[in-house]
């Protein structure tokens, strides 16, 4: 059974329809890359999956939790999917460790001791066990993004949404973040990522979704999508036209 079911999702900003009926089923453990030009709706789709944007029509269900605009439904949904952002969005007034501890303590009422133990494990997992007491502004971009991943993982989500998580990084810092994501993929985490890292998408992903003008234009395993693009739009996007 699918972990994430996206059915006929439509979304407009004013007159501009950015999602024109999206259907996508994601199996547990699947790693999916969404590619496409800016303005194709890929980030919006991702943001809909955990309710940062509302949808106008259709439905999104994650492991039985339905997207609905009220706080109760949103909370249930967000307990199942975590999200990593392009701009890291760490809480600047808290140390790396506290960033990771906060939500388990506040939302899940985990004790401080347990939350700290979990935070240390998660920071270790992203290679930053020694940065527990560092504030975000003392960390490099790559380190901040890894803390953000640890923070999301501490909530034990079933799936992670990654919204261009390496786009704000200096080139030499991209790989340390991608390595963490790759390790997650290998451990069986379900990942839905909007990315411009084509090589990474080809190596790590099970399926690639090419979005164009608010629709899923092509979808398939990376070997097919990258090696044998069927539509002129994808060919042009990949630069093989």
């Amino acid at each position, binding site marked *: 059974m699918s972990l994430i079911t996206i059915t006929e999702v439509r979304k407009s900003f004013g007159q501009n329809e950015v999602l024109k009926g999206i259907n996508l089923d994601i199996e547990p453990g699947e790693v999916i890359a969404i590619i496409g030009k800016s303005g194709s709706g890929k980030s919006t789709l991702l943001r809909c999956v955990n309710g940062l944007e509302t949808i106008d029509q259709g439905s999104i269900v994650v492991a039985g939790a339905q997207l609905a605009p009220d706080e109760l439904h949103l909370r249930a949904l*967000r307990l199942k999917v975590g*999200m990593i*952002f392009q701009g890291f969005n760490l*809480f600047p*007034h808290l140390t790396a460790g506290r960033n990771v501890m906060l*939500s388990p303590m506040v939302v899940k009422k985990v004790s401080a001791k347990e939350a700290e133990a979990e935070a240390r494990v998660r920071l270790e997992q992203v290679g930053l066990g020694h940065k527990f007491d560092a504030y975000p502004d003392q960390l490099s971009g790559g380190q901040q993004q890894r803390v*953000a991943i640890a923070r*999301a993982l501490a909530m034990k989500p079933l799936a992670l949404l990654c919204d261009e998580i390496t786009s704000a990084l200096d080139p030499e810092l991209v790989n340390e973040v991608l390595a963490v994501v790759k390790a997650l993929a290998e451990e069986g985490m379900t990942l839905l990522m909007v990315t411009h890292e084509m090589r990474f998408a080809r190596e790590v992903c099970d399926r690639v979704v090419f979005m164009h003008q608010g629709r899923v234009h092509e979808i398939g395993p990376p070997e097919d999508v990258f090696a044998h693009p069927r539509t002129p739009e994808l060919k042009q996007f990949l630069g093989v036209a």
Partner: protein
Amino acid sequence: MTAFSTWDIVSNLLLAARWTVLLSLLAFVGGGVVGLVVLYARIARRAWLRRAAGLYIELFQGTPLLMQLFLIFFGLPLLGLDVSPWAAAFVSLTLWSSAFLAEIWRGCVESIPKGQWEASSSLAMSFVEQLRYVILPQSMRIAVPPTVGFSVQVVKGTALTSIIGFVELSKAATIITNATFEPFTVYGFAALIYFALCWPLSKSSQILERKLNVAHHHH
């Protein structure tokens, strides 16, 4: 006729200034508490709450404090509530400062980047949890200088309560003037006392602003 020494004038003004300080403190604290509630309504998800808070703020910012004092001091007795000058002064200054503080703080909350709301949302925090653990701790840092700066307005605002008969610094100055016929000396000293109260506040607001800008962070 008795002669009044300068010390007589100053010492009586200083005694009255105690009430100015007390009223300022109470109104500032009261205004802070009510202001937090108004702030919460002003940024709430529900549109009618936001509108109601907006109306409240416009009302108190858009009418003179003196009118608010009069309405409370003369209006409430019409409803059968007998209010002392003390109570009227406290209530109107509290409401008045709550409106200004709520608006100052709203600006501080809105200066926090949207990503902080989104990150805390994606971690399943509720609106109140986001405010309490993520947004307010960051906006408080920004809010300190303008809030301390506003306290100067509260101190000066207490002068108006002399009109409804509350004996604080300004009222005392008027009373002493009526006895000594030396308005320039008396009001001059009163002004000096106000200045001595307000100047350290506005100065510390400036210093805090510079400090928080430079340090910008915790460590």
